[in-house]
């Protein structure tokens, strides 16, 4: 983002020239170590921060899952007790969806979108930093509830009136409502930011239909975020006002309608399903062509089916509410729309298989995980279609069949996809590959553990075992399968442990060695044109794009018989990262300061308005200093290349 400033904006509000700003308005100059990270506005570092924070929450949510499974391993379990059990399953869902899966997708989006479209950063670098810090603040805020008298206990979809003070008297649901509001700000701002980035910052020649499928899916996701987050924001406002200020939105005695919450929640909640899964679809749409050594089959179909999912995702929300008494016409309409939305998803599955068909497939760890998505997500998709048959759904509602279904979608689809992305892009981000051997072990242990965990849940659910009940009595035939499920869940934990060990060992083995050669996978899209790890300025010069799979077409051409031949080596095509004089946006303290203010406002709303004053002052100070800090510090004119390695 090379920016030259117009003269008028070179002055701060007090009329001084900005290259001699007052002390507080000076932009940080880095200084190495942690200071670089807390003030960074670099989309790559923010992507890594997102990834690290989300993996941390992923482990916490995983521990919560293991606690649930320990409680349910045997009949009449006593590990947790009913009240704690409610809190643990609620926080497992909230953590995994809002604090692990969404920010992991944001990690990939932040790191890769600018690289795939040939840009040097996102449209609003400081807003990008703010999104991350606000997300982290929100995540910490929600988890603070453990220390302040109890976590949320109303389930992740928090049905009214169970979430009112009558049925949930601890402050847990307040932390839920305000905490998700805070992370919602992060998602909304990030959605706007990346939407503008994709529309506005494409390299010359990169038309919309020359964008990689990953970027396309991420564009759909950002637009879904932009339009879905305000709906959950309203739902959470109504809940907060009901709990804290006595609003009567969900008070049936006065005419309040608990179904209003369900509608608002699922109008957000179903697009949210696609917000979660489309990033994984995007990731494997990059991985599968690379390791099948074929272009993606039916690129326009891939793009348009993603767009179709984005639109149709708004018309299926009431299939979460078939048993709530919405009436036969609504049930019929939403049954049909639910069957229809399976079509574009099926198109994607077929296109991935057609991409692999006849390809020279290399079963790398990333590819294995991608194939895992195609197969496991399909199982989840099929059980999802069974829900669209409303009479059957009536039997399945609130049983473990539902739990089995959405874990096949969320774990089998999303988590497998994200792991595929880890193995694929690790050399891009950190300059060394993860061990393929341990990666394959990671995959197989996870695949077996995953199916042991969630496969039997189909049976348990059809046998009538209810979800969200803290225990069960012996004699219903639930014992064996529950034990199997618990064993499976610990296998998943083992596979995640293998991944974490792989991260540590691979980093240690790579120490002292030169970074991975460029283009380790013979890949197709623009991000691989930069050296590994990506230099701070991304591209030495912005590439001119002529075709889809631009990078691949620079490496391969065809001879006179039309056969594909290699025309250039990766070393010839890749840039060497030595550009000088690239002007990058300066770091800033204020996104962090603003974000720190928000949890204090939240605590203040719950406990004492004085904390609101403090938090509000901090956030306001952050915003005003943000507005008035000089746009660029001319003292640190130019980025020195190769100063830092991510």
């Amino acid at each position, binding site marked *: *983002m*090379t*920016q*030259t*400033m*117009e*003269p*008028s*904006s070179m*002055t701060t*509000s*007090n*009329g001084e020239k900005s290259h001699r700003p007052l002390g507080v308005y000076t932009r940080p100059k880095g200084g190495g170590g942690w200071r670089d990270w807390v003030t960074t506005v670099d989309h790559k570092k923010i992507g890594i921060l997102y990834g690290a924070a989300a993996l941390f929450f992923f482990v916490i949510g995983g521990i919560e899952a293991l606690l649930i499974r320990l409680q349910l391993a045997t009949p009449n379990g006593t590990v947790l007790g009913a009240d704690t059990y409610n809190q643990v399953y609620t926080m497992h869902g909230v953590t995994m969806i809002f604090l692990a899966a969404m920010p992991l997708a944001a990690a990939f989006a932040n790191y890769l979108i600018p690289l795939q479209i040939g840009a040097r950063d996102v*449209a*609003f670098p*400081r*807003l990008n930093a703010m999104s991350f810090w606000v997300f982290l603040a929100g995540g910490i805020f929600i988890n603070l509830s453990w220390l302040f008298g109890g976590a949320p206990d109303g389930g992740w979809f928090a049905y009214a009136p169970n979430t009112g003070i009558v049925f949930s008297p601890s402050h847990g649901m307040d932390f839920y409502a305000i905490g998700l509001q805070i992370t919602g700000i992060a998602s*909304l701002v990030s*959605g*706007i*930011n990346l*939407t*503008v980035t994709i*529309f*506005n*910052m*494409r390299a010359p020649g*990169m038309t919309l239909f020359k964008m990689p499928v990953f970027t396309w899916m991420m564009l759909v996701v950002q637009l879904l975020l*932009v*339009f*879905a*987050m*305000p*709906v959950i*924001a*309203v*739902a959470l*406002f*109504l809940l907060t*006002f*009901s709990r804290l*200020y*006595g*609003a*009567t*939105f969900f*008070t049936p005695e*006065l*005419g*309040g*309608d608990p179904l*209003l919450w369900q509608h*608002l929640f699922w*109008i957000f909640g179903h697009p949210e399903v696609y917000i979660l899964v489309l990033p994984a679809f995007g990731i494997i749409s990059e991985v599968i062509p690379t390791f099948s050594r074929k272009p993606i089959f039916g690129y326009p179909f891939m793009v348009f089916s993603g767009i179709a999912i984005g639109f149709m995702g708004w018309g299926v929300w009431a299939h979460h509410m078939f048993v709530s008494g919405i009436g036969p016409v609504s049930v019929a309409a939403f049954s049909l729309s639910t069957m229809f939305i399976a079509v574009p998803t099926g198109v994607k599955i077929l296109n991935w298989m057609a991409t692999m068909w006849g390809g020279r497939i290399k079963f790398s760890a990333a590819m294995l995980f991608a194939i895992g998505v195609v197969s496991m997500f399909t199982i989840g998709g099929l059980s999802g279609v069974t829900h669209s048959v409303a009479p059957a759904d009536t039997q399945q509602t609130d049983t473990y069949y539902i739990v089995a279904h959405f874990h096949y979608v969320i774990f089998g689809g999303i988590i497998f996809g994200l792991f595929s992305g880890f193995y694929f892009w690790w050399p891009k981000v950190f300059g060394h590959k993860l061990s393929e051997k341990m990666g394959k072990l990671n995959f197989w242990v996870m695949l077996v553990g995953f199916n042991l965990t969630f496969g039997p849940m189909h049976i348990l659910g059809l046998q009538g075992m209810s979800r969200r009940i803290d225990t069960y009595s012996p004699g219903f035939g639930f014992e064996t399968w529950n034990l199997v499920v618990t064993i499976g869940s610990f296998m998943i934990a083992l596979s995640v442990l293998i991944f974490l060990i792989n991260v540590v060992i691979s980093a240690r083995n790579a120490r002292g060695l030169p970074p991975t050669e460029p283009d380790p996978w013979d890949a197709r899209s623009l991000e691989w044109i930069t050296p590994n790890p990506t230099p701070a300025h991304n591209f030495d010069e912005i590439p001119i794009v002529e075709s889809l799979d631009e990078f691949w077409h620079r490496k391969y051409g065809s001879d006179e018989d039309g056969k594909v031949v290699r025309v250039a080596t990766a070393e010839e095509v890749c840039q060497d990262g030595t550009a000088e004089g690239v002007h990058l946006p300066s770091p800033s303290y204020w996104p962090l300061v603003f974000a720190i203010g928000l949890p204090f406002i939240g605590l203040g709303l719950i406990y004492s308005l004085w904390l609101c004053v403090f938090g509000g002052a901090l956030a306001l100070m952050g915003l005003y200093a*943000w*507005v008035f800090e000089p*746009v660029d510090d001319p003292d640190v004119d130019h980025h020195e290349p190769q100063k830092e390695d991510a």
Partner: protein
Amino acid sequence: MTNQTHSEETSTGLSHNKLGMWVFLGSECLLFGALISTYLIYRGRFADGPAPGDIFDIPFTSVSSFVLLMSSLTMVLALSALQRGDERNNRLWLLTTALLGAVFVGGQVYEFTTFLREGLGYSTSPFSSAFFTLTGFHGVHVSLGVVFLMSLYISSARGNLHKERAETVELIGLYWHFVDIVWIFIFTVIYLVPSPTS
């Protein structure tokens, strides 16, 4: 609303700030859409409290709505002045717009206190909760707009708002017009559609 400017060409030809503002306003449509839906569901559920048809003072609110709509005109005049390089008139119209907005918010405060006195509290009924929440959110949006306008005014008074930065005024203008247009919907839904009486 960052203070970045872009001398570069963007892929769409729109500046980042302007495209960002449009996307943000698209998001705001869903926020108000959800709030308006909530009100529509609850307008007839006034429990033992005052019914909407009993309590609304339509002539009063019509006048304050007129004031708000006129502020869109003055907003356009402010932008047009700055685009011609006429900073003096830009300041005049910015201030007028902010004042009209403040009058509208003042009218809302008066309306709220009157309703409170007449027994319509925030917790009285789903109708009252939905009414105060919807109009309150709109009022907060107008108030924020007034803060933005005054920031522009101060910036101009200190000699920092010139013709080259007319786009900043345009962006605040987009936000301001949006808040006005939303009020047209809210006014129609709450006041003009015949309300239930007790």
